[in-house]
C-alpha cells in the first residue's frame, strides 16, 4: 500500500533521513521505533508531505506522492495524527472535527461520519462547543484521533500517540488505535514506548540516525537481543 524507497530528507543543512526503505501492506499495523532524533517523525512528515524528500520515491497505491502537497496526499487517503496531539486550541471541538474533514466535499457523508465519531467518543459530543485547548490531555488525544478519522483515511500515521499521557490514558489510546486497525484502516505508527508498540504491531522497523537498521515481525523483534538492550531496557 505504502512504499518508501531510498528516501532522503532534511531541514536545511541538517539531514534527517538517509536512504530509508519502509513498506506497509494494506491492513497492517506497522511501527517505527528508535531513539530520539533517529528520524521517526521526519519519516511520517515525509509521507504526509510536510517534509518533501530531497531524493527517493514514496509510492502510495501505485502512485508517486513524494512531490505532492499535504492536501493532495490527504485526499489520496493518508491522514497524519501529529506528535503532541496539536489540536487547534482556540477552535471548538466541533470546529476541530470539521477541520479534519476540510478536504471533503461529500457533506452528508461528513455529517454521518461526525455522528459516528461522536458515538465512538461520547466525551467529544459532550464537549462539542468547548475550546479544544480546555480539554484534558487524554481528551485532546481522542480529539486528535477523531479529527484524523474525519478525513476517512485508508492509512493513518500516528506520531507518538502515548507521549505525555497518563498511563491509563495511554492504554486507552492504544486500544483505540488497535480498534481503528481492526476496522480495516492501515496504521503506521511511531512510538517511544517500544514495548507497547511491538506488542500491538504486526511488523516493525528500528531506526537509527535516519536509517533503518533492523526490521521484522514485531514478535521477533521483541525477542531480539539488540532491540531488548537498546529499546526495551533489558
Amino acid at each position, binding site marked *: 500500500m505504502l512504499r518508501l524507497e531510498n528516501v532522503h530528507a532534511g531541514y536545511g543543512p541538517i539531514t534527517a533521513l538517509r536512504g530509508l526503505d519502509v513498506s506497509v501492506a494494506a491492513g497492517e499495523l506497522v511501527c517505527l521505533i528508535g531513539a530520539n532524533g533517529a528520524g521517526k517523525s521526519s519519516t511520517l512528515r515525509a509521507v*504526509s*508531505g*510536510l517534509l518533501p524528500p530531497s531524493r527517493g520515491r514514496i509510492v502510495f497505491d501505485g502512485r508517486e506522492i513524494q512531490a505532492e*502537497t*499535504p*492536501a493532495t496526499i*490527504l*485526499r489520496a487517503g493518508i*491522514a*497524519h495524527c*501529529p506528535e503532541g496531539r*496539536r489540536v*487547534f*486550541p*482556540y*477552535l471548538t471541538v466541533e*470546529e476541530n472535527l*470539521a*477541520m*479534519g474533514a*476540510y*478536504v471533503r466535499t461529500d457533506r452528508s457523508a461528513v455529517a454521518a461520519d461526525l455522528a459516528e465519531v461522536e458515538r465512538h467518543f461520547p466525551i467529544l459530543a459532550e464537549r462539542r462547543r468547548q*475550546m479544544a485547548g480546555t480539554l484534558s490531555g487524554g481528551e485532546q488525544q481522542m480529539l486528535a484521533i477523531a*479529527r484524523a478519522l474525519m*478525513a476517512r483515511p485508508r492509512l493513518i500515521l500516528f506520531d507518538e500517540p502515548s507521549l505525555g499521557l497518563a498511563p491509563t490514558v495511554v492504554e486507552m489510546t492504544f486500544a483505540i488505535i488497535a480498534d481503528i486497525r481492526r476496522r480495516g484502516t492501515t496504521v503506521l505508527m511511531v512510538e517511544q514506548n517500544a514495548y507497547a508498540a511491538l506488542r500491538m504491531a504486526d511488523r516493525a522497523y528500528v531506526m537509527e540516525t535516519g536509517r533503518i537498521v533492523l526490521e521484522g515481525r514485531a514478535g521477533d523483534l521483541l525477542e531480539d537481543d539488540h532491540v531488548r538492550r537498546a529499546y526495551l531496557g533489558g
Partner: protein
Amino acid sequence: MAELLQHLLNGLVLGGTYALLGIGLTLIFGLMNVVNFAHGEFYALGAYVSFAALALAGSDFFVALLVAIVAGAALGWLCEVALLRPLRNESIDTTMLVMIGVGIAMQNAELLGWGGVAKSIPHPFPTAPLVLGPVAIAPLRLFVLVLAAGLIAAAWLLIQKTKLGRAMRATFQDRDTAALMGVSIGRIHAATFAFGSGLAAAAGALLGPIFLVYPSMGDLASLKAFSVVILGGLGNLPGATLGGLLLGIAEELGAGYISSGYRDAIGFVIIILVLLFRPSGLFARQERIA
C-alpha cells in the same frame, strides 16, 4: 451632557472606520506575520477609487464603495502572490521593508495619477444634520457609521462562521497542522491579505467623502491602524473592533475638550500608555484571530 453625547457619537463614526482599518491589519499581522506598512495606502486607494467612481464616472455611492473594496482586495491579492509569497520563509524585517516599498510606490503612483491637490468626494446626502434628541448627526456620517458596523459584522461572520474563516483561524493557531488538514496555506495567506486590504479600502471609501482625499492620506491611516492593533492586541478581532472605537472616541473627546490641534496626539499618547502598562493589548489575550 449633550456635548459629551455629541462627541461620543462623532467618535463612533470615526472609530467605526478605524476599526475596519485595524481589523484588516491585525488579521494580516496575526496570520501572516507581515508588518504591513502599506496598509494605509490601501485606505488611500479606496478613497481614490471611490472618488473616481463618484466624481468621474458618476456612479452610485454603494457601487463606488463596492468597486473600492474589490479594487483594494484585488491589489492586496496581487501583492501577496507577487511579493510576499516568494518571501514566505524570510524574516519579518524583509517583508516589512518590502511593504514599506509598496507603500511608497502606491503613494507616488497616486501623486502621479491625481496630482497633489486634495480632492473632495461628492456625495448624494443632504447636508442638513438629523437631530436625534440631544445630538445631531450629518446623514452622511450616520450612513458611514451604519455601513462600517455592517462591514465589521460581515468580517466577523466570515471569520467565525465560514469554512474559509475556520481555516484562517486554524492556520493562525498552528500552520503545520492546518496544512495536514489539507488547508492550502498559500491560498489562506492570499485570501487574508485580500480581505484585510479590502477592509482598508472600504474604510477609505467611507471616510473619503467626510474628509479630503490626497496622496499622503495613507500615512496617518497606517499609524492609526497600528495604534488600533496595539490597543486591541495582535490578531485579536474583537480587540481591533473595540480598539478602533476607543481610539475614535478618545480622539473626539481630546479634540473637543482639550484642543482640536491635539486630535492625533491623543491617540499616540494612549498607545504609549498601553505599550508601557499593557503591552499585549487592552483586552484579555485569550483567542487571537477571532
